[in-house]
């Protein structure tokens, strides 16, 4: 288990990582999700031992490893750039950590072939990395991380430089490949959809702080605060500021919508309501739908679905509706909001009652 106890990193009088507590279990996949410069890489460097925290301690399996050099920690790292030894063949690249560790030739050969098989590199073992595609180069780097048999594997946006479809494939393979090894996996990404596809646990980061940590789908469905909700939403969330009084949310001069049962515990007063674009629709999908009117801006068609960008009471919203809806700009349209999935946040940004 990797534990960070009150770990903080300051650079030039500013926190790059605010005091952080985090415990990651063996055999788990943990996603660090946040935009560029939110502290994902800094946090990974602290976990690896590449940086020493300004304060706090890092424990591995109960032992304090705070000042221990990265070479002694049995850590593997995979970067966004495809980092391989350009002069070595794929075989030698994969073998390199075991050669350093002084393993015997038979073990090395067995392990290299096993890893190559898993990552579908067997036909390319005799090539050098520069003669491979980007996906194959990154697979070589992954294979090297795999044979190192590290107890902590850190992956910093490993798929960001790959084609969309290749990403999709590797993303599916990665959890399977690493599941058996029993190591702790940490995977940094800027993309919420990637976190959801990988599953496991997710820690959302914003401005050097972990805003929430838990099973990925839980964090997505029940964000603890507004910042987490915004970080973990792609397409972006929609918001309305309303005032709750009794059984209704008042959102415009005269309009209101009935408070759905799961939010009945919300105290009266100002509340920010958030919901995902696919909970808006052009037709009422359930009995709990509320009717709203908005001004369209632009429609984007993905082939099977449409993103309709619109203004609601001066606020930008996006609707994701199944089917193809090419709606003219600046048209007033009628929408239905599925209130079963509403999230509510107080004026302090904390979640009051999460969507069911």
């Amino acid at each position, binding site marked *: 288990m990797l534990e960070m106890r009150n770990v903080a990193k300051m650079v030039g009088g500013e926190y790059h990582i605010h005091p952080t507590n985090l415990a990651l279990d063996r055999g788990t996949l943990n996603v660090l999700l946040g935009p560029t410069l939110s502290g994902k890489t800094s946090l990974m460097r602290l976990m690896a031992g590449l940086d020493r925290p300004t304060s706090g301690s890092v424990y591995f399996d109960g032992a304090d490893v705070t000042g221990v050099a990265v070479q002694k920690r049995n850590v593997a790292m995979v970067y966004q750039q495809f980092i391989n030894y350009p002069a070595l063949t794929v075989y030698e690249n994969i073998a390199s950590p075991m050669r350093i560790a002084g393993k015997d030739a038979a073990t090395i050969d067995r392990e290299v072939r096993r890893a190559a098989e898993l990552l579908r590199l067997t036909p390319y073992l005799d090539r050098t990395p520069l003669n491979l595609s980007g996906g194959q180069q990154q697979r070589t780097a992954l294979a090297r991380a795999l044979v190192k048999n590290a107890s902590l594997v850190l992956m910093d946006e490993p798929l960001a430089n790959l084609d969309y479809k290749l990403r*999709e494939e590797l993303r599916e393979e990665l959890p399977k490949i690493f599941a058996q090894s029993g190591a702790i996996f940490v995977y940094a990404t800027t993309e919420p959809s990637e976190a959801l596809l990988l*599953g496991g646990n997710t820690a959302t980061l914003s401005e050097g702080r972990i805003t929430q940590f838990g099973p990925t789908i839980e964090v997505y469905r029940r964000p603890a605060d507004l910042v987490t909700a915004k970080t973990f939403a792609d397409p972006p969330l929609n918001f309305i500021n309303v005032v709750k009084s009794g059984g209704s949310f008042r959102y415009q001069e005269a309009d209101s919508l009935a408070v759905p049962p799961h939010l009945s515990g919300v105290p009266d007063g100002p509340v920010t309501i958030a919901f995902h674009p696919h909970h808006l629709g052009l037709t009422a999908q359930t009995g709990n739908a509320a009717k709203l009117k908005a001004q369209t801006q632009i429609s984007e068609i993905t*082939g099977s679905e449409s993103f309709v960008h619109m203004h609601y009471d001066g606020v930008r919203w996006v609707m994701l509706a199944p089917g193809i809806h090419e709606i003219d700009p600046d048209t007033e349209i009628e929408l239905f909001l599925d209130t079963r999935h509403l999230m509510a946040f107080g004026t302090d940004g904390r979640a009051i009652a999460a969507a069911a």
Partner: protein
Amino acid sequence: MARITLDHIRHAYGPNPKSDAAYALREVDHEWADGGAYALLGPSGCGKTTLLNIISGLLQPSHGRILFDGNDVTNLSTQERNIAQVFQFPVIYDTMTVYDNLAFPLRNRGIAEPDVDRRVREMLEIIDLSDWSNRKAQRLTADQKQKISLGRGLVRNDVNAILFDEPLTVIDPHMKWVLRSQLKRFHKQFGFTMVYVTHDQTEALTFADKVVVMYDGQIVQIGTPAELFERPSHTFVGYFIGSPGMNVMPAEVHGSTITLGSEAIALDHAPKIAAGDKVELGIRPEFIRIGREGMPVTVTRVEDIGRRKIVRANLAGQPIAIVASEDIEFPTEPRVTFDPGALNIYANSWRVGREA
């Protein structure tokens, strides 16, 4: 703005290409409408960037001509072709202010300063950077820089076409949404001919009126997002568009019945298949319904990706993916039905049309 004619264009990087395989671009013969928004979509190495460079004038095609509004521009330089281009990484003049960056192409063309000022201010308004006009461009965020690159193209209102080379690569997911819809709005507003190169299907489909899918140096299909989604003309298009891609399973056709292993599906017509053709059935995960009726499947895994669930299952010995809603509940003995209108039949990887 111009109509772009690609007249039998072929391109090879090496001299004296011997075979088709030596061509980075095998044969492109198309006409793109004035004011159209086109996306060139494909994996890396498919020839999309080669085609873009031929349009921009950076590359001379080995064979064929390129025409703007019927005028042969094959031998004209990039500058003479009067196009604008936005690159993968923002290209800005670091030492200039935002204002001067936008004024640069106008001043280079000797436009009078009052006109320059008027147009730059208009453009600052459009790209939403008026408040930043006197800042050094170096200090902006990636998305702001990318808007400047775009603005430098748009500010010249006489350009023949605007070319985009994976312009959202370095942009965070949240900003991608904003920039993408703004791009689309510019297109609607100004009616430029736009060509957008990407490997990301979401970007291609949402941006373009017509998506040009490329594979292995050839255009495999040009169509609207809906056409590509519903009627992929090649199994590659089925695989490449959609996530997960289309399920493609080996099948047999007998008259107007298609069989998958032991399962038979009745068709409303008899597809024309020649003896010895490799026959496959394609069905998108979105068009498979899971319930108590139809063909029995064994569910192997369910991935909860937030707004929907991806069900991995086995049907007649074949792995299939099914997209289900987030609220789905499985029956104990799940069965699936295919939407009859969404079945595609392929002979040797090419789609067999109803009329064929």
